[in-house]
């Protein structure tokens, strides 16, 4: 049977001062690239789905990658200047365990939150 390890994390971010949408988008892309590189140390040609959803006043937008060395693909656009955002990071990767995937996500969550504090 096909296996995939998965994990998800939710984070509330407060931006002080408020951040332009382009800066938040870059922060998300940097996080996803960091996750990709970390995944590659475990599975050099990993396949799956790693996405970071951002909920801004009820508007859900997400960036995602689906394989090693992938470019971030966006669904929706962050349009406003942000003072606060709810983020959900989710990854499901074939042939890894839940623990391995969770470890990768957790490794960079402090970096994500520190980037805006």
């Amino acid at each position, binding site marked *: 049977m096909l296996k*995939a390890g998965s*994990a*998800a994390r939710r984070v509330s971010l407060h931006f002080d001062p408020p951040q332009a949408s382009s800066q938040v988008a870059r922060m998300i892309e940097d996080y996803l690239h960091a996750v990709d590189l970390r995944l590659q140390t475990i599975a050099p*040609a990993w396949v799956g789905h790693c*996405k970071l959803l951002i*909920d801004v006043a009820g508007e859900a937008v997400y960036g995602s990658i689906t394989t090693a060395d992938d470019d971030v693909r966006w669904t929706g656009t962050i349009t406003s200047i942000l003072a606060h955002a709810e983020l959900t990071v*989710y990854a499901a990767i074939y042939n890894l365990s*839940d623990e391995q995937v969770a470890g990768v996500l957790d490794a960079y969550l402090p970096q994500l939150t520190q980037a805006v504090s």
Partner: protein
Amino acid sequence: MRCIAFTGFLGSGKTSVILATARALGARGQRVAIIENERGAIGVDGPYLEAQGLGVREISDTCICCDLQSSLGHTVRLIDSLYHPEWLLLEPSGVAHPDELANTIEDDAMPGTEWRLVALLDAVRFGRLWADQSGLGYLLRWQIERADLVLLTKTDVVTAEQQALIEATITGVRPEVKIVPLARTAQVGELVLAALEEVAAC
């Protein structure tokens, strides 16, 4: 009730296509329900679709094709009795085996339902996955084998030559299957519905 199961790898675009299809159906005045089969304690796709204003029921942390076959039939009957939708869109998890999913649908008799299996194949990853026939590639073959319709997603990021090669590979397995290339456009939902109508008319 017309039921559409969208099979595909993790990250193949299932949630985006389901959202576009549901919106297109809504614009036609059709009632739509969605079943999400996600793994893990925190669902992501279900809440995302709900945030877009759609009705979603989740079957979480199990696989509908192999772990708990009765869940799918039970959930379909429950949704039908509660909401009477004209369309039901099913998103299996990315680990669902297309053949086992098809068998589950066939075995779990659901009166009043008409099922179609739609395979989402990601044009960007197709070549890499197809080459791995002893690994993930065999699932691609099963997706094609059991599909009533193939949606080739992310064609906006491959060349025309790459797309033609993928389509030739697909028709090499199933010469008669309809293939619809899907680039990132506002018409995705309408394209999917038109293709489903064409398949239903055959």
